[in-house]
């Protein structure tokens, strides 16, 4: 991603500059890895949710915190170019989710559980940033 940017330092909007970084087989891999990330999210979410009695959406929290940790790790390992797009954006980007986090927060709010809704926002943000920092530190040390 960074290398593609440096090819056109004066342009941020590059509608047809994709193949700079991602090759045609790379796009197929983006689709396949997106599927893998989504299925992993479903399975982790469902196994965490099943083992917790709380109504708090811990499954999504576990997915997002672990995904932020792993993406931090890849960043710390200084992965770049197509490898970062495939392992980071395609796989971990699909594994973690923003929309479900917001939907579950909205649901808690609708159910009148305002404290739980606020906690869902604050805990996810804090754990997400903390996990990304930790992952990057581990990756940098390796």
């Amino acid at each position, binding site marked *: *991603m960074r290398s*593609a*940017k440096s090819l056109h330092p004066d342009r*941020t*909007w*590059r*509608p*047809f*500059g*994709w193949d700079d*970084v*991602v090759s045609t087989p790379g*796009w197929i891999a*983006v*689709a*396949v890895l*997106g*599927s893998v*990330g*989504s*299925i992993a*999210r*479903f*399975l982790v979410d469902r196994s965490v*949710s*099943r083992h*917790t009695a*709380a109504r708090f959406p811990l499954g999504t929290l576990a997915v*997002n915190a672990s*995904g*932020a940790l*792993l*993406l*931090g790790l890849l*960043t710390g390992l200084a992965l770049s170019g197509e490898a970062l*797009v495939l392992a*980071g*954006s*395609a796989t*971990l*980007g*699909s*594994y*973690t*989710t*923003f*929309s*479900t*986090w*917001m*939907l579950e*927060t*909205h649901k808690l709010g609708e159910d009148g559980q305002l404290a739980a809704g606020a906690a869902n*926002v604050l805990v*996810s*943000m804090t754990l*997400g*940033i903390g996990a*990304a920092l930790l992952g*990057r530190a581990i990756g940098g040390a390796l």
Partner: protein
Amino acid sequence: MATQDTARNSVPRRRIDFQELVAIATGGAVGSLARVGLSQALLTSPGEWPWATFAVNIAGALMLGYFVTRLQERLPVSTLRRPLLATGLCGAFTTFSTVQIELLKMADRNDYALAAAYLAVTVVCGYIAVFASSALVRRVRALT
């Protein structure tokens, strides 16, 4: 599916359905392609507002609010639409981990104001997006 919404944790175990996994994988592939495609078309540097990530997250939250509310009113509930559209498509189209890395990169540049604004605006707009799309579906449903 309906019971999973109201009391997902009280559902002890449901066997993994192969068709459900295929639906999630299909939606996930499309969501991933759309998000990575947009992020490659719209590259931003760490000092800038990450428009690509912001756009997919808000659009995905709008879509999820719409799909989930629409699917709740269908009886019998379609068993594969939710995994395809909600878990697969919207789940993969939006991302949480990329936001965290973007925040770290902003903090690296001591751009704390941008990082705080990005995080706050993303969360507030994402919440409003889910709220607005589900409220709109209910409003339309009440009229018809």
